[in-house]
């Protein structure tokens, strides 16, 4: 658990509107290792959304280097970025962003469809991913027939199904009540225990507390980083055992992970 999955080096992003230049990011550098659970916090206007877009390969930086799983993302074309998003990143959004006309399993299949996975394999993996988030009995339900918490769990299943390098969650609990928030955070925690790399973007301190490492962003720069990568390995391993047992969802223990997820970390 030590190879850097992503590294940002002096990332700057400038928006030009007609007269004004907005310096959204003014030199952001940090590294996230495989298997880390990181929260990026900041007030609105801090540049945290811009940072999320760049991390998610939805936008390219004005300058600076961004390496994601060894690939230089900054120089890629729109087409290549689409492929990187498909293979490397599992998005979870505040608005869930499920397609209302499709049932849960077809929503989860969507990224696999764009990856060109065969139909049978796709259905199999989507069903497994939905079982993983505790929705094995909701495969045929449409988003309108599910609660907010269930919808967000479908979205997490969709983020998991391609076995991405990183799960990038943008205010995933922003639209949820406290019970569903707890469910979703518990799920992230389990995924973290299972070796997933999770980057969670939020402005809520309680949500950020769930992560082992918190990066504060303000005015386009990193204001503080609770545990820079190098310093935190020892501490993480000592804390891990107690946290795991506290947050586990009983019906989905970690060792029930499907094999394809366990083997194939990129």
């Amino acid at each position: 658990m030590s190879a850097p999955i992503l590294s940002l080096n002096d990332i700057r992003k400038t928006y030009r509107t007609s007269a004004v230049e907005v310096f959204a990011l003014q030199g952001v550098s940090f590294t996230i290792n495989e298997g880390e659970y990181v929260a990026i916090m900041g007030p609105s206007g801090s540049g945290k959304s811009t940072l999320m877009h760049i991390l998610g390969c939805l936008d390219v930086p004005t300058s600076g280097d961004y390496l994601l799983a060894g690939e230089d993302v900054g120089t890629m074309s729109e087409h290549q970025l689409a492929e990187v998003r498909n293979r490397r990143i599992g998005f979870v959004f505040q608005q869930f962003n499920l397609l209302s006309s499709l049932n849960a399993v077809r929503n989860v299949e969507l990224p696999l469809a764009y990856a060109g996975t065969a139909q049978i394999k796709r259905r199999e993996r989507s069903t497994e991913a939905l079982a993983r988030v505790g929705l094995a009995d909701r495969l045929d339900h449409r988003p309108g027939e599910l609660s907010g918490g269930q919808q967000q769990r479908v979205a997490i299943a969709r983020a998991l199904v391609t076995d991405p390098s990183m799960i990038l969650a943008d205010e995933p609990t922003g639209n949820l009540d406290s019970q569903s928030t707890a469910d979703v955070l518990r799920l992230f925690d389990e995924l973290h225990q299972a070796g997933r790399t999770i980057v969670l973007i939020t402005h809520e301190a309680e949500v950020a507390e769930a992560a082992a490492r918190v990066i504060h962003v303000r005015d386009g720069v990193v204001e503080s980083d609770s545990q820079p990568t190098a310093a935190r390995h020892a501490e993480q391993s000592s804390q891990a055992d107690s946290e795991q047992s506290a947050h586990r969802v009983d019906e989905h223990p970690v060792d029930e992970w499907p094999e394809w997820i366990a083997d194939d970390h990129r």
Partner: protein
Amino acid sequence: MNFAETVRTSLDAIFTHRMRSLLTMLGILIGIAAVILTVGLGQGAQNQVASQINKLGSNLLVISPGSTSTAGIRGGRGTASTLTSADATALADKSIAPDIAAVAPVSTGSLDLVAGDTNWTTSVVGTTPSWMGVRARSMTSGRFITNTDLNTSAQVLVLGATTAQELFNNADPVGQAVTVNGTSLTVIGVLNSVGTTASGTDEDDTAIVPQTTYQTMLSTSANRTSISSLYIEAESSTSLSAAYQEADQALLTAHHDSIRDADFTITSQESLLQTATATDKTLTVLLGGVAAISLLVGGLGVMNIMLVSVSERVREIGLRKALGATPKAIRKQFLIEASILGLAGGVLGLVLAGIGIAILPSLLGQPVVVVPLAVIGGLIVSLLIGTIAGVYPANRAAHLSPIDALRSE
């Protein structure tokens, strides 16, 4: 995402917005139905006219007195008929006109026929035995006039089906006596029924007498040898124009006319057909044009709704892009959606046209023909219109930024 899945995605989108999709298709639907019905009506009318003109007889030329004007439309007919029995005899001469197979001079007058206490006014035709062959007619009972009848000015008469029905109801008219202009004639036969011509004349409302009988006993004209028209049958359809030239030349010589002041007009079936179908064609082109404009408007409708659809679905597009859809995949999705809308509009248009083809003939009294080319062409055009209308909206969708798309509420 492969083609079949993209089609499925597009179908999902179309069925999710059923009402809107239907309204989108409406323009193309109406356009295609209009095209097929217009072409079908036009073709039906043309077929009808053609079959009616062909009823006149095959390889037929009609010579009528009077001069001609342009485009085969006959000018004012002269008061005195300039055609005579001598012209008929001249044209029947093989050494003068080798491509003319038969000539039937016709003298016509509207006369009163009396049978018992029934009377009926009909078109009485004085002609020769060759008339039946030239006009491609046959008998349902009795016999036609013969050369003997002609030579002896026999007091005999052949009735058309309508005339026979009017005079004798359902009784057998053969052997019955009919009085015309005080002359008593014996019915010797009844012609087969051929119905009404394009100009609305009942071809069965007629009575045929030997030409000599007509000229000596029935005609009220001062010049008893003058005739109303000459029917000429060419040897074959290929020698029709040769027969035309020969007849023209022979008559010019006989009448000492120059081409400028010819006192007769030769009409071929083809020119009749052309005149008769010219109006139909104009109408078909006009209505077809309206239908084409309706299709164009239909295409604009598809484009309009697709643009609305793209702006309404920016979130979906943004999400698909975030999940890994390339611009190409998004473009393909919207193009296929527009094509399906176009094609579905075309198919529904065919259904509507089918209903029209079933109902219209009884409503208009006009036949409507299914023209296969219009059906296939209509489907292809509707698919093309949909696809073309989809290009601009699809490109807009493809180039939406995923950030802007996801941000929009």
